[in-house]
């Protein structure tokens, strides 16, 4: 199978799909990779084939258009292909991937990273009980399976995702016990100008809220879920008011439920950029630690581009425009032309809305107090806040030091779900601002890699014979 390309694009969501298409239209030979079977990314995820009869949402339709456009283009798409390592050898990028038939290596002269985002959930008592799901993860389930995640659901979280997920659960016939959001009505009003500048999205949002109101859904504004009840499975949860900094205050109300969908905003997937050699910096408006990029997605490393939510959380519209600019810039770069000669398409209104929505979703510091001393922070290794803080008090002043001493983040998740919280614990103990304690060095593989899949062509007789170690 072919293994060398002008441009490799990682991630086939709105950003990567657009980048690949535009670059191919400009004459580049483009490979597009995604761990999902079909293009679409998070927001335009394809419906599972078994569910084709379910009615289409605007997201499904947008995804179908995205997939059709890619099919008509000259882009080579390889799905179910996961990147586990990326290296630059001289001027060639080497992408190590895992496919259904084992590992493979692809080479490219330029690389466009569009790895999207993942969810952040602030640890709170009982968040590891079965029946608790990530909010964004639930939207992914809804999109592919077209079924609600449980019978009686509470949807909790910040920003538009909570409203969207609740509306979708209703559409699919699920029961919503309550919607709980730390945002206030006033927070949303603040975003009104940005919303009105984007009438299509504003209309969708208004429809969701109207739908929820019609169905008589209680919406708890400025509230948080503070704990769950039930050991084997979720039976109920506690909801409290919170301050404008999202610290819980006042008495809790108990709400019976078998399912909780909860999320506290999105974090850019910056690991691949870091592995590729980019330095990360903290930008709260972008959702956390990101690699800086120029207007065309260019980075400090020639031939390496970054776009979409992986460059800062701005939503699908901005992601695809960024993708177009990055795709064009990469194709031009290969021909020796400057990035600025390419696509300039850029909707400042959509960027404004993206910024406003990230502002709504971004966790506030009051959330820290949800994590009690007994709360598990690192799920893989079963480590509580108290255990981690004891180590911080003993002198572990960086994520690396905390990891080494406690194994926090050394489990199968690779720290994706706990090291953000761990860094925050260190900052709090040091009285430092968010974003002062940096994430650990990213190391391959980017996910647990089956030993059976690598080195399948290994021949013992090919072992390099080293000069014997000095005696």
């Amino acid at each position: 199978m072919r293994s060398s390309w002008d441009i490799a694009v990682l991630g086939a969501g709105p950003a990567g799909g657009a980048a690949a298409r535009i670059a191919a239209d400009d004459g580049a030979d483009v490979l597009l990779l995604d761990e999902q079977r079909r293009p679409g990314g998070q927001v335009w995820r394809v419906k599972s084939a078994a569910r084709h009869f379910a009615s289409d949402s605007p997201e499904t339709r947008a995804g179908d258009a995205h997939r059709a456009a890619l099919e008509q283009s000259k882009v080579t798409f390889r799905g179910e292909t996961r990147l586990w390592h990326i290296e630059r050898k001289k001027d060639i990028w080497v992408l190590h991937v895992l496919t259904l038939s084992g590992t493979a290596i692809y080479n490219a002269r330029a690389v466009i990273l569009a790895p999207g985002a993942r969810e952040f959930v602030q640890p709170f008592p009982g968040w590891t009980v079965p029946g608790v799901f990530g909010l964004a993860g639930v939207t992914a389930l809804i999109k592919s399976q077209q079924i609600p995640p449980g019978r009686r659901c509470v949807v909790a979280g910040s920003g538009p995702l909570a409203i969207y997920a609740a509306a979708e659960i209703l559409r699919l016939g699920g029961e919503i016990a309550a919607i709980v959001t730390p945002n206030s009505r006033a927070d949303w009003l603040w975003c009104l100008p940005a919303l009105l500048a984007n009438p299509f999205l504003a209309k969708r949002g208004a429809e969701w809220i109207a739908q929820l109101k019609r169905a008589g859904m209680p919406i708890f504004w400025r509230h948080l879920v503070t704990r769950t009840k039930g050991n084997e499975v979720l039976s109920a949860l506690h909801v409290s008011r919170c301050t404008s900094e999202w610290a819980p205050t006042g008495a809790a109300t108990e709400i019976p439920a078998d399912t909780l969908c909860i999320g506290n905003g999105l974090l850019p997937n910056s690991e691949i950029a870091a592995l590729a050699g980019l330095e990360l910096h903290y930008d709260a408006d972008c959702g956390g630690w990101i690699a800086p990029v120029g207007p065309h997605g260019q980075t400090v490393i020639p031939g390496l581009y970054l776009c979409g939510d992986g460059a800062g959380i701005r939503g699908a519209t901005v992601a695809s425009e960024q993708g177009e600019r990055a795709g064009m810039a990469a194709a031009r770069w290969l021909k020796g032309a400057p990035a600025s000669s390419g696509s300039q398409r850029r909707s400042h209104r959509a960027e404004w809305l993206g910024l406003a929505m990230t502002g709504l979703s971004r966790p506030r510091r009051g959330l820290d107090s949800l994590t009690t001393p007994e709360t598990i922070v690192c799920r893989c290794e079963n480590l509580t806040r108290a255990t981690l803080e004891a180590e911080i008090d003993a002198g572990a002043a960086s994520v690396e030091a905390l990891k080494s001493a406690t194994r926090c983040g050394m489990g199968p998740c690779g720290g994706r779900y706990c090291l953000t919280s761990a860094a925050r614990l260190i900052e709090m103990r040091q009285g430092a601002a968010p974003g002062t304690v940096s994430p650990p060095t990213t190391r391959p593989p980017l996910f647990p890699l089956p030993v059976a899949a690598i080195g399948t062509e290994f021949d013992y007789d090919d072992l390099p014979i080293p000069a014997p170690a000095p005696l």
Partner: protein
Amino acid sequence: MSESYDITVVGGGIMGCATALRLAEGNMRVLVLEKSDLCQGASGVNAGTLSLQIKRVRLMEYALRGHRIWASMGDAVGFRKTGGFTLAFNDREAQLLKERQTLKRQAGAPIEFVTPKKLLQREPEISSKVTIASYCAEDGYANSSLTGQYYRACLKAAGIPYRERAPVSAIAHGSDGFVLTTSLGQVRAKRILLAAGAWLGPLAAMLGVNLPVRARVNTVSVTEPTPPVIGSVIGHATGLLTMKQKPNGTVLIGGGWQGYGTPDAGRGCVSGKTMVPNIALARYAVPALAKARLTRSWTGFEANVPDFYPLAGDLPGVYGAYVLGCVRGGFTIGPYIGKLMGDHILGQEPELPLFDPDRSFEGVPG
């Protein structure tokens, strides 16, 4: 920060920490300055093998005494004396193994040769393709991840101040010793010990001394917890493989395969080209590893000089300055050679000789 000490140790790896402890025992007022975190350089990312079978003949006595210290540190550093096997899979390797291990046995390591049958009785998951193995009951491992936690606690208990995220960027001669510039301010010290691992070159250069320090970029990988596959430390006649399974079921795989990068430019990079055959060789030796999943590979910088013997003694030509580093198998030997170094600085005769940094490296192949 404008402080003054009897001695400042530059570099908080195992060499710097072990020496600092000895100096404090000798009543010196010591400060440790560390560029990042204590023991996050080679000392915190190494494979943790404590094996006499891979030690140099002339360093054997140091390693034997090092093993004793590790045993006394015990659980706090994840010490396990498991015994270790070194495997040969063909005649060439068998011959190499016999020649080398015989010399090491003469140097004092209790190494014996075992048949594949005996090996498989102890380690049934090891490949039946082994033709001969050597065994050393003294071998084992410690958990290098715990080195920082361990020494941090020791320094605190001994009342030794240390500063992390305090890289030394300049060293000047002062009225009574040295003035060191760090990101936290200036420090005065009557004497200094350079123990900066792979970063020794630029530090010595600050005092006008040229040390021929180079770095290897060693790779280590680890699997997620896996049902028991091996009980002892496993090596390979060529040195291309080291392997051990921790009590939590994770299997650590090393063997000196080279990544790339330089000490001045970050933490180094894993090369797929060398990491993949390293894992494949591990699976060749222990086929059951095929069921495991790899969670992480990383690199660390191991310093050396052309003759691959330690730099341990006075910094040539600079009164009051010392250097300790470039010790092959330095994790194993570190706690012991740190004591010797401390004794030397305290003006006492070390119980085993040090390695004069002023020797000539000219014409030494390497």
